[in-house]
C-alpha cells in the first residue's frame, strides 16, 4: 500500500474517476495548464486534454452554473473553486438551481456535480483565503457536504462524491494538504457519504470534529490521556447528511461531548449537532456540551489566526470544564 499526503490522494481520486468514466469533467480556474494552485489537478490536463480538463475564465458563478448545465446533460462535472472564500458568487447557482432541480422537476432533472474548494485557515494566507463557511452549505437542502480529514478518506470520499446522484460540496482542509502521509490502498476504495468515522475509541468524553480540527482533537486526547481521561473522537466526514446515530451511540457511553470546528460559532455545525443531541439523547448527558470553534468575527488576518483557530489546549480546557460537572445520570 503506497503512502501519500492528502493533496496527492485527492489527485489520485481525480485520476481514477477520469480513467473510469469519461463523463467526468474537471473545470475551474488554473486547473489545466497550471495544474491547480495547490497542484491538485496535476497530470490531468496532460492526460485528458483541454476538452475534459477545462481552464475557465475567472467567474465562480460561471463555473458552477456551467457545471450544472453539464450535469443535467449527462456529464459528471467536478469543478474547483480556487478558495472557499470566493465561492459566494457561485452560491446563487448552488442554492437556486443545483440544490433544487431534482425537487422542482419531481426527479426528472438531476444535478450530479461536485464542487471542490480548499477551505480553512492556518497557512498564513492573504485576506479571504482562510474562511470556513461550510454551515452555509449544510443549511442548504438538496446539497451534500463532505469534508475529509486525511489522505485515505479524502480519496475514498471524493470517489463517492463523484458517483453520487446529487450535488456534493467537497471542502478540502488545505492546512492538512501536505501535513502528513498515510497508507492509501492500492485498490480503489469508496467510503459511503453520510457515515462518520470513530477516529479514537474512548469512554470518558466524546470529541466531535471534522477536517483540519481533527488534529486538535487528537492532540487533546493525547494530553488528556496523561490525566487518565479517555477521549473518544468522532470524525464526521459528512456534514450533510449528518451521521447523528454514531454521535448518539458514543454519548450513551460517555455522557459528555466537546464539538470542535474552526468555523464561526453562531449557527455553526456544532450548533446543529447540539440541537440534535438535545432532541434525541438529552437524557444521556452528564454535563453541558461545549464548543471549541472559531469566533463570531471575520477570520482574522494571519498575524492572529493561531488564536482564532481551535487547538489542543483549547480543547483540553473545554474538556476539563465539563468533566468537573457531575450530572449523576448514570
Amino acid at each position, binding site marked *: 500500500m503506497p503512502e501519500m499526503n492528502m493533496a496527492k490522494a485527492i489527485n489520485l481520486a481525480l485520476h481514477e474517476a477520469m480513467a473510469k468514466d469519461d463523463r467526468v469533467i474537471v473545470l475551474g480556474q488554473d486547473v489545466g495548464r497550471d495544474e491547480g494552485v495547490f497542484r491538485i489537478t496535476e497530470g490531468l490536463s496532460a492526460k485528458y486534454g483541454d476538452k475534459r480538463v477545462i481552464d475557465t475564465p475567472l467567474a465562480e458563478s460561471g463555473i458552477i452554473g456551467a457545471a450544472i448545465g453539464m450535469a443535467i446533460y449527462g456529464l459528471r462535472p467536478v469543478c474547483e473553486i480556487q478558495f472557499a472564500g470566493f465561492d459566494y458568487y457561485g452560491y446563487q447557482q448552488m442554492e437556486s438551481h443545483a440544490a433544487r432541480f431534482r425537487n422542482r422537476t419531481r426527479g426528472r432533472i438531476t444535478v450530479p456535480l461536485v464542487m471542490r474548494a480548499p477551505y480553512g485557515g492556518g497557512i498564513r494566507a492573504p485576506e479571504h483565503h482562510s474562511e470556513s463557511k461550510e454551515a452555509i452549505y449544510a443549511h442548504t437542502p438538496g446539497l451534500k457536504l463532505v469534508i475529509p480529514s486525511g489522505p485515505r478518506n479524502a480519496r475514498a470520499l471524493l470517489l463517492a462524491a463523484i458517483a453520487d446522484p446529487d450535488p456534493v460540496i467537497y471542502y478540502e482542509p488545505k492546512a492538512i494538504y501536505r501535513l502528513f502521509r498515510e497508507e492509501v490502498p492500492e485498490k480503489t476504495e469508496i467510503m459511503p457519504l453520510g457515515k462518520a468515522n470513530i477516529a479514537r475509541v474512548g469512554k470518558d468524553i466524546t470529541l466531535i470534529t471534522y477536517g483540519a480540527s481533527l488534529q486538535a482533537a487528537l492532540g487533546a486526547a493525547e494530553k488528556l490521556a496523561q490525566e487518565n481521561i479517555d477521549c473518544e473522537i468522532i470524525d464526521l466526514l459528512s456534514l450533510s447528511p449528518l451521521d447523528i446515530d454514531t454521535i448518539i451511540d458514543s454519548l450513551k457511553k460517555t455522557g459528555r461531548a466537546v464539538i470542535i470546528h474552526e468555523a464561526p460559532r453562531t449557527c455553526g455545525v456544532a450548533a446543529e449537532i447540539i440541537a440534535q443531541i438535545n432532541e434525541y439523547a438529552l437524557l444521556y448527558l452528564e454535563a453541558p456540551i461545549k464548543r471549541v470553534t472559531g469566533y463570531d468575527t*471575520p477570520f482574522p488576518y494571519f498575524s492572529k489566526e493561531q488564536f482564532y483557530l481551535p487547538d489542543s489546549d483549547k480543547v483540553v480546557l473545554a474538556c476539563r470544564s465539563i468533566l468537573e460537572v457531575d450530572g449523576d445520570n448514570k
Partner: protein
Amino acid sequence: MPRTPVNISAQIDYLSILDEQGKVDKNLEPNLSADQLKTLYHYMLLGRRLDERMLIMQRQGRLSTFAQCTGHEAISLGAAFAINKSDSFVPYYRELAGMLYRGWPIEKFLLYWNGFEEGAMVPDDLMDLPFCVPISSQLLHAVGMGMAINIKNEKRVVIVFFGDGAASEGDCHEALNFAGVFNVPVIFMCVNNQYAISVPLSRQMKAKTIVQRAVAYDMPGIQVDGNDILAVYSATKDAVTRAREGDGPTLIEAITYRIAPHTTADDPKHYRSDEEVAIWLKREPLVRFRQYMYDKNLISKAEEEKLEEQISNDIKKAIEKEELLAKSPEFNDPLHIFDYAYGEMPPCVQRQRKELEEYLQYKRGSYKKGEN
C-alpha cells in the same frame, strides 16, 4: 419591413505617447511641469524599489505571500496623478505606486503583507478604499460611491482598478451597466496584464479588447499603453474632466504585462515562456520614463543616485517602523480579534472574548479556575 443596419457609434482609440525607447510624441505630450514630472518619477521609483524590497523580505520569511506590482507602476500612478486628493481611489491589489502617491505610508504595505489588518487602515484624510482581494467586487463599490457623489451634488470623481480576469466576473457587467444607467463620475481602469494567474487573455475572453465593452454600455472608452505613464495620465485626465462635468463614466483599458508571478506563491514556468517575459521586460514603464526624464534634462546621474539613496532610506525607516509595530503589544494582542467585528460588541462576542482571555492566561501559566 426591410433589414436595416442598427446604428451603433463606435470609435475606440489606442493612445501611446512615450514609446518603448522613451521617445515622446510632442503633439500628445501632456503639459506637466518639471516639478510634476519629478514627483511622478520619484513615486514610480519608490513603487518599484519597495516592490523589490518586499520580494526580498518575503523570501527571507519576513512577509508572507504577496502580490508584486513591478511593471504596473505607470497605470496606478498615472491615474492617481490625474485626480485630486478629495477624489476617491479604489484599488484591486497592484496599485502600490499610485497608493504611495495618494499618501499611504510605506509601512502600511509591509503591515498588510505581514498579516495585520492595520495595513488596510485607509489614511484619515482619504476617501479611498484598501486592497480588494475577491476580484471585481470593488467595481460596484466605486459605482455606489459615484451614485453618492451625484446624490450629494458633489464634484468629486472615483477611479477604480480591475484586472483582465476581473472583467470575466458578473460584477464587472453589473458595475459598468449601473455606471451607464446612473451616469456616475467613475473611471474604470482595466489593468490588462494579460494573465489571471495562469490563464492568458485568449482564454479569458474571445473579444480582442476589453475596451470595446464601452460601446455596449454606451460610455467613452480608450485603450492606452499601460507602460506609458504619460498616456495613462492623459487618458485619465480627459475622463476625469468629463466625469467632473457630469458627463459620466469612462472605461480605460491599459495594456501591460504581469512581468512578475501572480503572487510569490505562483510559479509562471508552469504556463509561460521566459522568451515571452523577455519581450515585455523591454517595454516596462520605468526605463522609458527615465529615458524621457534624461532627454528633458530633468534628472542627472548625480540626482538619480541621490533619489535612489533617499528612497532606500525612506524604505529602511518604514521597515524599522513596521518591525516595531509588528512586535508591539498593541499590534499583537490577540484580543483585538474581537474589536472591530461590530460597532458595539454583542454579548456572544463578549463571552467569546472572555473565553480567549482565559485560554491566553492558561497558556501563560497564570490561569486559575474561577478567577474570571
